[in-house]
């Protein structure tokens, strides 16, 4: 029934191979068209899948899980690595997100990367990334997810290091890859632990997914065996996997790679580091959610507090950054932390497995993932337009751009309103539900998250005013007037804004008027229809706080000069500098790796390798050489010596023959 879904995976792979192998021989336009068209088809197929899936009949009020393809790749005794496609509410939702954002980025890159050397390579890597991300969300088992996880990491490395002649780009791509790889080590240990005890990698956790049939998700299977082995095993495995996810999703302290990853081209930042790859960790938790709820509810507090701290930290740093892409990067970190917190505050209920509490957090997290992908991608693409116009990332060189770039201005403003959580924009509904779920978990967490939401609004509008209002950079504008971006770059912006507004209006009205039929009707923890009811008190509180923050930002940053900001800066110079330098996280990591790991761990191991391992072989070679040298004198060329040896040999032989 869903047999066409295989093309969702195959088409980007094909486009990657074609562009990668033959790209250099094509013209730029042709390469770009191939990439974009294949992705267009993928998008159409994804929407088709979504319509078919969500339009299908529910069984027992639950959306069925479909497995159109699942074949065993590597059988290893009890365990086996499979490759397959799993259709499930969250994976279908992710399909829509990935394909939409990717298509927008492909179209946008026509304009942004115009004239760049390596244009074809760029599109090849974009296709590779899209394929890997799609494979990740459609994975039928955790090992397939891990495989595509690594592939996504590789694509990210290739794309961040796209401008490889520049040193910062190389350093950033290496850092991204190494940090995520380090986290993935824990992920792998978690997978192996899990597989060892549960005897299966598949997501139905019932042993094996049977191909083609719908199965209700998450039946307990051999999990019971793992529980019997020890109560701490499954939580340990899950937490290890979470650490892997934390690396990919830039949770503190493994977030250090994401700000540096902004060295890559801006569309890449939009696609990978805002909308899709960085949410892989969130997706992983959502995928393993039934296990978390059932067997490791206590461990979920780890997720919550890591998320809360990360959100606060990132928001604080974002308030002091001057590079617009860095502000957006830290904003991303903060928002992903929101998603993690949403998943983490889902407590198990008292009676049923999935009751209201669990439902809300899960659904809120997924919804925020969806909306955040849209408006954050829009923000990044706007930033790309601005960078394209001003040829620099620094806010100090911008200002007063609203006259020159109207479309960018409007779309940026809409996305800022969305992220700030103003009603009738999509961010309001999702963020509001997260905060509601936090209050259900613990009031402390709820108030902290509200505060962070306020900070979010504040720094986003600081950014907005810094770019579009304030003093113009007159000298630079005399040289080269900034102009609006070409059509290929503005159309994606408009499309994403339309989605943001549309979703926002629909859900806000739906929430107020109790329509139902909102996001929760599609994606929820138990697969059942979950209607969102707005908690009016929390909604009102968060809206008022957001508006207050915006007013504060307007008051401080809107004018031609910013006296209050300057006075604050003079009063707290060190705090500002610490925030600007991201609270010295990079330096701490450098210290740990260089002084501690390199000096105490790596150097002895390197010494051992050089002297003991190599030394053994060098010694054997030396020994052979010496032996050869010592025997060499036998070949003296002296006939008489040969005669002596000959005689001795003959005598010895005679003696031997005599004695036998």
């Amino acid at each position, binding site marked *: 029934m869903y047999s066409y879904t295989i093309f969702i995976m195959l088409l980007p792979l094909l486009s990657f191979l074609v562009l990668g192998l033959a790209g250099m021989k094509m013209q730029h336009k042709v390469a770009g068209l191939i990439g974009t068209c294949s992705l267009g088809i993928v998008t159409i197929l994804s929407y088709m899948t979504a319509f078919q899936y969500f339009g299908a009949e529910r069984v027992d009020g639950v959306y069925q899980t479909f497995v159109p393809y699942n074949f065993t790749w590597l059988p290893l005794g009890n365990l086996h690595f499979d490759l397959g496609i799993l259709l499930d509410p969250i994976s279908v939702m992710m399909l829509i997100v990935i394909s939409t954002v990717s298509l927008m980025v492909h179209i946008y890159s026509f304009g942004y990367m115009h004239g760049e050397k390596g244009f074809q390579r760029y599109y090849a890597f974009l296709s590779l990334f899209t394929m890997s991300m799609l494979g990740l969300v459609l994975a039928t088992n955790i090992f397939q997810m891990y495989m595509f996880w690594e592939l996504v990491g590789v694509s990210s490395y290739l794309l961040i290091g796209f401008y490889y002649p520049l040193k910062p780009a190389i350093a950033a791509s290496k850092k991204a890859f190494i940090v995520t790889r380090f986290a993935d080590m824990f992920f792998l240990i978690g997978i192996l632990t899990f597989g060892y005890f549960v005897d299966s990698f598949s997501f139905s956790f019932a042993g094996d997914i049977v191909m083609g049939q719908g199965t209700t998700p998450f039946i307990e299977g051999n999990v019971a065996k793992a529980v019997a082995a020890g109560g701490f095993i499954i939580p340990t495995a899950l937490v290890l996997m979470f650490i892997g996810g934390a690396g990919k999703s830039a949770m503190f302290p493994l977030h250090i790679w994401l700000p540096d990853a902004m060295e890559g081209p801006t569309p890449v930042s939009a696609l990978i580091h805002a909308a899709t790859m960085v949410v892989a960790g969130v997706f992983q938790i959502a995928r393993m959610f039934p296990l978390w709820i059932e067997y490791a509810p206590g461990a979920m507090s780890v997720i919550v507090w890591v998320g809360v701290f990360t959100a606060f930290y990132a928001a604080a740093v974002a308030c002091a950054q001057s590079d617009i892409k860095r502000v957006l990067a830290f904003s991303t970190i903060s928002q992903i932390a929101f998603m993690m917190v949403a998943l983490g505050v889902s407590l198990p209920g008292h009676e049923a497995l999935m009751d209201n509490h669990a439902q809300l957090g899960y659904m809120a997290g997924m919804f925020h993932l969806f909306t955040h992908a849209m408006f954050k991608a829009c923000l990044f693409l706007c930033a790309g337009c601005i960078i394209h116009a001003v040829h620099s990332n620094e806010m100090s060189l911008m200002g007063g751009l609203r006259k020159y770039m109207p479309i960018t201005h409007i779309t940026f403003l809409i996305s800022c309103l969305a992220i700030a959580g103003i009603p009738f924009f999509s961010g309001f509904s999702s963020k509001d539900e997260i905060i509601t779920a936090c209050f259900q978990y613990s009031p402390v967490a709820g108030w902290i998250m509200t505060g962070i939401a306020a900070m979010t609004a504040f720094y986003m509008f600081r950014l907005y005013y810094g770019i579009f209002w304030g003093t113009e950079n007159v000298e630079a504008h005399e040289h080269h007037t900034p102009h609006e971006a070409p059509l290929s770059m503005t159309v994606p912006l408009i499309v994403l804004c339309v989605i943001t507004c549309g979703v926002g209006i629909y859900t806000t009205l739906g929430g107020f008027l109790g329509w139902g039929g909102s996001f929760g009707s599609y994606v929820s923890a138990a697969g059942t229809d979950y209607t969102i009811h707005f908690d009016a008190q929390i909604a009102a509180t968060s809206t008022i706080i957001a508006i207050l923050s915006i007013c504060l930002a307007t008051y401080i940053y809107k004018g031609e000069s910013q006296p209050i900001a300057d006075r604050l800066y003079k009063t707290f110079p060190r705090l500002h500098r610490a925030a600007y330098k991201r609270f010295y996280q990079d330096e701490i990591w450098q210290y740990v790796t260089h002084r501690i790991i390199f000096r105490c761990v790596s150097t002895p191991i390197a010494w051992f390798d050089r002297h003991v391992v190599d030394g053994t072989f060098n010694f054997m070679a030396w020994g052979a050489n010496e032996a050869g040298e010592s025997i060499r004198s036998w070949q003296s060329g002296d006939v*008489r010596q040969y005669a*002596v040896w000959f*005689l*001795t040999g*003959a*005598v010895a032989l*005679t*003696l031997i023959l*005599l004695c036998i």
Partner: protein
Amino acid sequence: MGNTVMFIILAVLILGSALMCVTTTRIMRAATFMLFVLFGVAGIYFLLDYTFLGAAQISVYAGGVTMIYVFAIQLVSKRTLQGLEERVKSSRMITGALASLLGLVVVGLILLKTGFYTVDMSASDVELPMRTIGAALVGAGKYQYVLPFEFISVFLLACIIGGLVVARKEEKEL
């Protein structure tokens, strides 16, 4: 009785000349002592009633081969003839002596261990008649030696030709 005396004289001659031959430093003397050894060996053959063999030894070996050596010495060892003596490294002497002694000991052991039976000595001191030797040499029967005889003549021819080729003076190209 007479045989024993003769044997002792011959043995002393042979061994003495051999020793002198290998230890003398002057090459011409070595050739001379070799000549004495050859004569001694011919004497042994006569003692064994092999007159033909003894005659062959004297004519071929003592006459021909020694002459070859003398001529070779004249051709090659110009400086040695003029009195330059050969120095022998003492380490080499010791090595040589040791090896020879070792071999001698082994052979001696074998000799002592093996019991040789001697045919009844009633076979008198009658020399082998020449007629028998001649008939055997060219006879083609079962235990007769025409094949090795022919072979050795061809072999000698080959050696002569080979020697000529090897020692030929190189033609100078103009």
